């Protein structure tokens, strides 16, 4: 055993155990470290944002004289008018700016890389042949499932049409495909969460207690 002698590592280890104690029961020590965690995350975010404001706005404005940057600085400060009732409405201007920008930069990509590219990728030959001309059954079946499945899911999300007859058959197929999809998602969630848990086990038993 090589227990760490670094006080920081001890702080980390004790804090992690305190947070994990929540699994047994909510308790005061858990609450203490939870508050430390929340404070740390907000503090860290403020530091990085400060760095960005200095590098991206203040320095270019004051050193290089890029005067247009006064506008985003003013808009940025206007966000804080929401804390002063009489001028609170002014905070909508920067919010509107961000919203307009968000919409403006995403619409093109939504259409090109999501709608069009994905629709295009769904167009696969239903009969697949190898280069020597022989028929590939497995690949053909996969492709048929993929085309029908995508259509089925789209049918399921028809809202202004009652699901009856063939529409309902396609929609039901789409729903089954989605159930399997959710199952796959769950299987991966299990793997992902265990990975994270292993990371913390390695911190506690390796870095801190020196057993691993």
């Amino acid at each position, binding site marked *: 055993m090589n227990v760490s002698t670094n006080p*920081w590592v001890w*702080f*980390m280890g004790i804090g*992690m155990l305190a947070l*994990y104690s929540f699994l047994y029961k909510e308790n005061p020590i858990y*609450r*203490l*470290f*939870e*508050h430390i*965690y*929340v*404070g*740390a995350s907000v*503090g*860290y975010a*403020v*530091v990085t*944002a*400060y760095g*960005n*404001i200095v590098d*991206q*706005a203040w320095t270019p404005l004051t050193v290089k004289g890029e005067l*247009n940057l006064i506008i*985003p600085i003013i*808009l*940025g400060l206007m*966000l804080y008018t*929401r804390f002063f009732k009489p001028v609170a409405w002014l905070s*909508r*201007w*920067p*919010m*509107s*700016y961000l919203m*307009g*920008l968000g*919409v*403006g930069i*995403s619409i093109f990509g939504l259409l090109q890389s*999501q*709608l069009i590219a994905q*629709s295009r990728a769904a167009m696969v030959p239903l009969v697949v042949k190898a280069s020597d001309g022989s028929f590939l059954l497995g690949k053909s079946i996969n492709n048929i499932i993929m085309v029908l*499945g*995508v259509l*089925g*899911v789209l049918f399921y999300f028809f809202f202004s049409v009652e699901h009856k007859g063939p529409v309902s058959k396609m929609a039901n197929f789409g*729903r*089954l*495909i989605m*159930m*399997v*999809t959710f199952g*796959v998602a769950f*299987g*991966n*969630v*299990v793997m992902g969460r265990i990975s*994270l848990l292993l990371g913390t086990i390695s911190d506690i038993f390796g870095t801190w207690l020196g057993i691993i």
Partner: protein
Amino acid sequence: MKRSVPVLIVFLVGVLVLATYFIESPGLKQVGSMLNNWGVIITAFAVGLACVNIIRIHAAHIANQRTGWINSAVLLITMFLFIIVGIYSRNNPSNEGAAELFSNLFNYAYSPFSATMYAMIAFYVASASYRAFRMRSVEATLLLAAAILVMLGNAPIAEQLWNQFPVIGSWLLTVINTTGQRGIAIGVAIGGFATSLRILLGFDRGHLGIGD
């Protein structure tokens, strides 16, 4: 002023930026880059909003000596510690002591604590697997079967038991899951497009806190 300006800002910024994706014009491109750059700066200012909210809530707790006010104090102290150390070390890059302190705060407090909070979910996944995942219906059974097969495909140990587990797992992931996710992604792109356009043209003002 209160109602029309925000709608106008959304429209102008959105349309100008959107146009840069279609129209070849160096001047327009410059305007688009400038508008985008302003957005980067405004977002950095927005980070401080969370900080102000936290200060308001927790300062009130402390002032009213509400139960747990000590935790509120700890939270604020941690937050300011991060902010002061972080900003000091940024402005004095030659001071290695400050840089090391900040890196310790990140590596031994913020980072392991946030990892712990997320890792805890692994335990809930385990108890939910036991309690919630029941073969109640055909759909639930499909979901479960897919989840188990994917897990077996992901775990190297299962491959030692039967070498087809990864093949099945990979088929579910790359064929069925791709189909389901693609259908959903196309639907989401269409929905996202319609919502974006509504915002751009000012039909959806709820986002701005202005009802019509």
